[in-house]
C-alpha cells in the first residue's frame, strides 16, 4: 500500500524538493501552502504522515498542528515539523502543539525518508 504524505510549506522550492524526494521513494504526495490549506486536505483525504513547515502565512505550522490534534480525528497521525529552527524553543512549541518529530532544513533525502519510517507504521 502506498503511503500518503501531506507536505505543508509556503516555499515552492521546498515543496518541489519534498515532492521529488518523496515520490522517488514511492510515497504519494499531497501539497498545501499553509496550515489552512493543510487542514482542508485532511478534511478531504486520509494521509499517513504530515510534514509541515513552521513559518507560513494565514495559519502557521504550530497552529496547524494544534488544529489537527484538537479535531480528535487524527490522534495517531504522525506530524513531522520541517524547519530550519534548530533551537530547542521552536521544537518544544511544535511538540507542545502535538508534533511527533522534526527534521531540519536543509534535509538530506535519505534521512528524510528514514525519519518518516521512524514515525509511520
Amino acid at each position, binding site marked *: 500500500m502506498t503511503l500518503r504524505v501531506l507536505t505543508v510549506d*509556503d*516555499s*515552492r*522550492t*521546498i515543496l*518541489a*524538493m519534498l*515532492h*521529488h524526494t518523496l515520490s522517488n521513494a514511492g510515497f*504519494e*504526495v*499531497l*501539497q*498545501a*501552502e499553509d*496550515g*489552512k*490549506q493543510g487542514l482542508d*486536505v485532511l478534511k478531504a483525504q486520509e494521509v499517513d504522515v504530515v510534514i509541515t513547515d513552521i*513559518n*507560513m*502565512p*494565514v*495559519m*502557521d505550522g*504550530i*497552529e496547524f498542528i*494544534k488544529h489537527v490534534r484538537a479535531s480528535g480525528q*487524527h*490522534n*495517531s497521525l*504522525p506530524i513531522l515539523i520541517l524547519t*530550519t*529552527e*534548530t*533551537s*530547542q*524553543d521552536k521544537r*518544544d*512549541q511544535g*511538540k507542545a*502543539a*502535538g*508534533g*511527533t*518529530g*522534526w*527534521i*531540519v*532544513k*536543509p*534535509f538530506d533525502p*535519505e*534521512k528524510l525518508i*528514514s*525519519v518518516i*519510517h*521512524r*514515525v509511520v*507504521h
Partner: protein
Amino acid sequence: MSDLDDFKATYFDECSELLTELEEQFAAIEAGERDRERLNAVFRAIHSIKGGAGAFGFSALVGFAHAYQTLLDFVRDGRVELTDDVVTLCIRANDIVADHVNAAQSGEDLPANYGAEEKARFDAIARGETNSEAADSGDSGDEGGEIVEDFDIDFTPVMVNLDDQHGRREAPVDDVFEASPVASVPEQWEVRFTPHRALYARANDPLLLFRELAALGQMQVRAHLGEVPPLSDFEPFAVYCAWEITLISPTLTEEAIREVFEFVDGDCDIVIARLGDAGAVAPVREAAEAPAAADAEMDLSSLLALTEDEMAQPAEFAAEPEAEPAGAQDQFEDAPGMSLAALADEIKPTVAPAPVKAAEPARPVASMPPAKAAAPAEGDDAGRGSVGVQSIRVDLDKVDRVVNMVGELVITQSMLTQQMDETLRARYTELVRGLEVLAQTTRGLQDSVMAIRAQPVKSVFSRMPRLVRELATKTSKKIKLETIGENTEIDKTVIEQLSDPLTHMIRNSADHGIEGPDKRLAAGKPETGTIRLSAEQAGGNILIVVEDDGAGINRERVLRLARDKGIVAPDITPTDEQIDQLIFAPGFSTAEAVSDISGRGVGMDVVLSNIKKIGGSVHVRSWTGKGCRMTLRLPLTLAVLDVMLVKVGDNPYVVPLSSIVETMQCSRAAFERVPSGGRVLQVRGEYVQVIDLGQRFGMVPANAPDDQFVVLCEAEGSQKVALVVDDIIGQQQVVIKSLEENFERVDGIAGGTILGDGNVALIVDVQGLRTTHIHQNAA
C-alpha cells in the same frame, strides 16, 4: 542530479517573488504601517530565501539571511524597536539579500565581506536589546550570525530495516561480526522505557521505537503489564505498560539508543544501562504465559485470563519478525550485579520537559493576496491530488506555438464568416449559428492563451525602488518613487525586455531630471523630487510612463549638440517637441556627450531600439522647469491585431486599427506645402503632417488621382499624421509575423502578415514613419 537545476530555477523564481514582496512590505512599513502581519510576512520571506539557500549550499546568502532574520525575529517579538534607522537598515539588507541571490544565480562570487557592515549592525542591535534572554529566542540562538547550527542535521536517523533493502550498514543485523574488522565482543545494553500519556498524544508509538531499536542489534523486549487494570477500569488513553529492552551488538553506543528516543524525549522515562559483554548467554526459556505478538497488542482474552500473580510477571514479546529469525528468540538473563530493582531505582526522567511558551496565534489577514494565483507559478508539483495552487512548467516555445496557431484559427474563422454572403446566410441558418459559436470560442481561446503568458509588470517595477534609492544616494538628491498600476499584465516576453529600458529611463530622470535639494527649494519646489512610474492598458497597447518633476530637457543644448553631430541641418529650426524627440536619434548621444550636455539622452537611442525590437515605441515630452514625461507604448504582443487593410499602388498594406482616428477622401489640392519641404493637411482647424505612403515606400505613383484616400492616425503624444493611400479595403484581423526574424528591420514597417488569399501584407508603423519623417525633413 539533473533535477537540481529545476529546483534551482524554482528557487530563483520564488526568490524574485519574495524580493518583490519585501519591497512592497517595506514600502508600507516606511509609510507607517507597522502591524505584526507585515513583520511576519517580511520574516517569512527572508526565512524562505534562507531555507532554499541552505538546500543549495549558498552559504554566503545563508549567513547574511540568518543574521538578518535574527534581527527581524527580535523586531517581531518586540524586543527590538522598529525605529526609522532599523527600517532603513532593513531596506539596505533587502538589497544585499537581492545581490546575494543574483550572485548565486549567476554563479559569481561577491566579495567575502559583502554586507559584513550591516551584519555587524544586526548583531549590535540584537545584542543591545533590553535583556539577554535573546539567547534562546525562537529562531536564532545566540550565535550571532554563525550558521553552523543551521546545517547540523542534529540527528542521524537510523535506516529501518523494512524490506531488507536497507539494513544499517554500520551494524548489519544478521552479521554482527563483519561490522568491524577488529573483532569486538558483543555488548549488552538494557533499556527501561516508561512512556507518558503525552507520547501517545503526539502520535508517537512504542512499537515504532522498538522497530527502530531492532535495527541496532539483537533485541529482546519485555513488557511490564502490572499496571493494567481490569477492563471495567480500563482507560483507552492511559498508559499502563512499561518495557525493558535488551540489546546486543558489538558496535552499539548509548548515543545511538538515545537517538531512537529523540522524538519522545521528555514524554517518557528512560534509563539506559550498559551491562558489559554478552558472552554468557543463558539457555532459552520459553515464554509460556504470554502470546508472542509481533504487533505488541495484547490478546485481550488472554489478558483477561491472567491472574494477578501472572500480571506481575513480565510478559515477553518477540521483537520484529524481521529482526530475528523466528524461533531464535534468545533470552538473556540479567547480568549479575545489576538487578532490575537496582535499575528501577535509577529510573527518573532524564530530561524534564522544557517550559513551553505559548505559541503565537497566527493572525490570518484577509487581505493577504494569493500572490501566486496571478503569476504563473512554476512549481513542479504535478503530484496526484495536489491541492493549493497547482502548476506545471511549460516551455515558452510550446506556448508560443499555441499562441500562433490560435491566431491563425481566429483569422480562418473571420475569413469563413466573411465568405458567408446574404444568400448563403438565408439558406444555411445552422451553419451561420455554428460560425457564431466558433467565433465566440476562438475569441475565448485567444484570451485564455494570452493569459497564460501574461504577468503583472510588478516583477519589473519592483526592482526600481532600489535603483532610485541608490541613485539618490549617489547624487545626494532626495528622490521618491511612486509606482502606479503594477498589476497591469503584459506578455512575459515583453516583460523580460522591459527591465533595461526602464532602468535607463529612470536613471536619466534621477541623474539629470531631478535637481538637487537646494536648487529645488530655490525654484519653489518641494525638496524631494518625485519619479512616477505607471503602467496602464490602453486599447491594444500597454502604456508605461516614467514621469519626473525635475528641470525638463535642456532644449538649447540638445539642439546645439544635434547640429554639431549633423543630425539637424543648420538652417532648420525644429519645434520644441521635435527637439525633445531628438534625444532618441541614433548617434545622438556618445560618451563625450555625457559631459557636454546635461546627460539627457545617454543611452536613449539604445532604449528606443530595445523598445522597437518588441514592437513598441517611445515618446518624450518635456516642460522646462516642471519635468519630463517619457511614454513607452508596447503591444500586448497579441499575436492577433485588428487592422485596416489599405492599398498603396498594387500592394496591400495594413494599418493597426488602434492608431486610426478616421478615414476620409480629399483632393490633392488640400495638401499645403510648408517651408521644411513637408506637406500638411488641415483637418478641422488643425494642421496635420501628410505622409504619402506610395512616395515613402519608393513606389512611383502612376498618375496619382486627384482624389486621395487619407487615413488619419494618431501617433505618440496625440500627434496626428495623415497617411495617403490609394484605396481602403476594409477591416480585418491579422496575425503579426516579425520582419526582423524572417528578414530584417525596415523603417516604417512594424511587421508583416499573411492575408486570407495567401498574399503578404506589410504592417505600417505609424509612429516610426512619423519620427523618421521628422529626421528626414530636418536633415
